[in-house]
């Protein structure tokens, strides 16, 4: 056979064959082996998922009715519940949200929100926000900056609120306006049996409001300058917020107070925004009239995944707070940033103590997952003199909050 082939190879006039014939021969051979194009089962599933817009449908639900997942307060557990969300009412000029959630730790939250869209070409923002919270296990370590980690207790907080805000934008990036609303609060014994209840551990003289239920009428004004490039995942620009609100105790006239908030954020990008230094300074200052005290449950607090990340949630609480955050972020790959951060802050009883002394400090590192300029997952590992904390959050480190009186309610 081999001899025959060798003989043939030397005997046949090869030049009679042409390139074209050779290529056609190759095609002919292929033509008899054709089979329909197939994609893998997984590719087909993923394609259908996208083509049928399953994520969008799940997210939007049926005519606006959908499941609301997550979003509970820190240590509130994983929340789930129904939500009715529409942004196309009145020809797209009104956005509505009605939701109710219960969490794995028996926390409950209800929201009714109506918000204007594109009023007067975006120069007016109006919002009505009503909330209900049932938070049975809020941590409390006692008043002041010297509270002990071992002094952990808990209390139940149940509240209802109704607030209205109106924002005017005279020039781009600036929003200012008034706000008013009502807040009804019920505080009770904590339901977490692993720890003492706050009312059993601390006397009413140390924790004002722990023994009496009251309600508030609140009103105030806000002024905001927002030059952030992407509100949900900023890399450049600034955000400067000043709010003043007055809480009037409607029942006892004993727990009214003034609250002044300044929240200053600046993002400094370099190397084409692939490196960012994010800075924040925030202070909450309260003031009372004669005979008034700030109820402990409305006092500013520090500790947790959004401020002092090396400390437990609600670790420090007093009439005033001061906080500094600094982050250096750098891009690992498209969609993931890493961060080194340092936090410093304190709570303090008197406004005269607004200074840089006795700051609690924490530092650490973290990851930020981004999609389309939005931070959808943040993982932070914080270290402090009290140990180590890990945080899994679904927001930017400096999350945007509603404006006006509702925003000064610390439990969102």
């Amino acid at each position: 056979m081999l001899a025959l082939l060798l003989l043939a190879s030397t005997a046949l006039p090869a030049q009679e064959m042409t390139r074209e014939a050779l290529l056609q021969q190759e095609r002919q051979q292929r033509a008899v082996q054709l089979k329909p194009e197939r994609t893998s089962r997984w590719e087909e599933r993923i394609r259908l998922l996208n083509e049928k817009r399953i994520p969008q449908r799940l997210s939007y639900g049926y005519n606006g009715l959908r499941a609301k997942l997550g979003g509970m307060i820190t240590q509130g557990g994983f929340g789930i519940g129904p939500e009715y969300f529409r942004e196309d009412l009145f020809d797209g000029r009104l956005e509505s949200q009605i939701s109710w959630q219960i969490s794995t730790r028996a926390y409950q939250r209800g929201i009714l929100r109506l918000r204007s869209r594109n009023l007067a070409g975006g120069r007016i923002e109006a919002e009505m926000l009503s909330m209900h919270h049932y938070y049975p296990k809020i941590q409390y370590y006692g008043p002041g900056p010297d509270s002990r980690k071992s002094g952990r207790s808990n209390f139940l907080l149940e509240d209802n609120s109704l607030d209205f805000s109106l924002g005017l934008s005279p020039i781009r990036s600036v929003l200012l306006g008034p706000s008013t609303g009502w807040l009804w609060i019920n505080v009770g014994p904590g339901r977490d049996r692993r720890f003492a209840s706050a009312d059993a551990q601390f006397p009413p003289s140390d924790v004002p409001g722990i023994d009496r239920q009251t309600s508030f009428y609140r009103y105030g004004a806000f002024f905001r300058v927002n030059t952030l490039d992407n509100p949900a995942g900023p890399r450049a620009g600034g955000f400067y917020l000043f709010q003043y609100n007055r809480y009037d105790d409607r029942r006892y006239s004993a727990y009214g107070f003034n609250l002044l908030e300044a929240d200053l954020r600046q993002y400094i990008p370099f190397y084409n925004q692939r490196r960012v230094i994010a800075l924040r300074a925030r202070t909450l200052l309260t003031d009372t009239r004669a005979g008034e005290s700030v109820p402990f449950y409305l006092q500013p607090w520090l500790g947790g995944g959004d401020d002092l990340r090396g400390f437990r949630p609600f670790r420090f609480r007093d009439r005033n707070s001061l906080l500094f955050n600094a982050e250096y972020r750098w891009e690992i790959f498209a969609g993931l940033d890493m961060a080194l951060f340092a936090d410093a802050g304190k709570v303090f009883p008197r406004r005269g103590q607004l200074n840089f002394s006795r700051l609690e400090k924490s530092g650490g590192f973290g990851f930020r997952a981004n999609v389309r300029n939005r931070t959808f997952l943040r993982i932070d590992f914080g270290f402090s003199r009290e140990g180590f904390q890990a945080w899994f959050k679904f927001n930017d480190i400096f999350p945007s909050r509603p404006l006006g009186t509702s925003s000064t309610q610390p439990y969102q």
Partner: protein
Amino acid sequence: MTTMRKLLLTLAIAAALHGQRFYPDDPLLVEPPPLDAGKPARRRLSDWYDLFWHILATPGEKQPKSGPPIRAKNVNTLGDPMDGAWYVRRHYWRRMPLEELQRGAGGTAPPVFPWTVVAAKGEGITPGFTVIDATKRRFFIKLDPVTNPEMMTAAEVISSRFFHALGYHVADEYIVEFHPRDLVIQDRLTFINQHGIERPFTRRNLTELLLKAPRLPDGRYRCVASLALEGQPLGPFRWFGTRSDDPNDTVPHEHRRELRGAHVFFAWLDHDDSRAINTLDTLVTRNGKTFIRHHLLDFGSTLGSGSDKPNSPRSGAYHFSWRESAIQMATLGLAVPYWAKARYPRYPSIGLFESKVFDPEKWLPEYPNPALLNRLPDDEFWAAKQVMHFTGDEIRAIVRTGRLSDPQAEEYLVRCLIERRDKIGRAYFRKVLPLDRFHVHNGELVFEDLAATHGMPSPAPYEIVWRAFDNRRDQPGETLGRGARIPPAPGEYLMAEISSPARPRQTVRVWLRGRTVVGVEYGW
């Protein structure tokens, strides 16, 4: 003839042909007429699957880590792809007049008003819809983002002209201004809104859609109108493997020269979105036969544009790579990637495009593309010589088709393209001897030193060694002489081996049949 005899004859022919380098009809400039493709089904690929598959497991046959590399398999003996369903030799082989360059794939029949909207998309940031014009032709309409008027439409039209001149099959595209009153909505038209719900498409939806686009002072909107490609759409082609239902698709795509060489074109024009989704196969009928034609599509993410926003400053880097990610983590970001150091002037109609930091050898698309990854120095040279062939005036003429209203922006874009072109020439003319356009003149082998032509460092002078060549065995024989003059040939074929003392590893082999150049091969 018995089966055994047929088999023997086939084997005998195969053995005879094995090793033969040239055939009488070489070099073949045009693909043989295609076989009838029948009725292949439309293929639908998942963009997400495609993205992750390529990032995590780059498919296709890769270049071997050792041993001889796999050269492009779809080329003729001169090293060029043949004119056909994938590619047509255009500007480099026949300098196109400016008007022809500006026309692109058509350029003579823009859509005629009124337009009937027959499809619209309600999701995504970039507004777009499909219309049938007054002459019953189907056009796909895309608009610029509000933040960057003219950016996407200019990029789309400019790049489609370049890719057409570079030889690819692309759509016929126009920049058009229309007024909303030029649009008529087809009866009972529905669309899928951003929540995945099918809704009637009304005039109000159209108005909302147009709110996402910049409005001209006279109330009109600027858009790019892409004429639907000829033939029945069959879905995208992959950058590896072959279509199993196409008899003419015999060469794995990762081994096609025009797809490997596309890396250089993509780098030049910053076409970093080289996913399958930006390609389209169509079933075309000619003389009663059907065949599949392969197109490049959607150039809205080229130059400085990222379609709905300026291009990412990451342009020129993979979305993800293990090595780069590890470096970034380990160095706390102190190892700054080269692309992050780019500086971009503020031209909203350009987006993010520059030429100072650009390095064609470092540039990468968004994900590992099997064909681009398989490129060899001869693939790169094949592409680079085409890029270098564009003169400044030709580049300027094509950029003008983008109709940028800011003359400074236009000039900036031209300057960037010229500087990027020159960087490409310097990078790839260095990797092989930059010689081309071989022919015989007055008994001598003549060629063009492209580096010298374009004012770049040339490895000249060159040495030419002539050898006899046994075509049947694909083997060079005895040395016949030196120098440009062609020596008497003992047989039908001669081989010239060109080298340069300045680059001892690089050679070009040129084969002659009589006085005709029939083969060229670069070594490195």
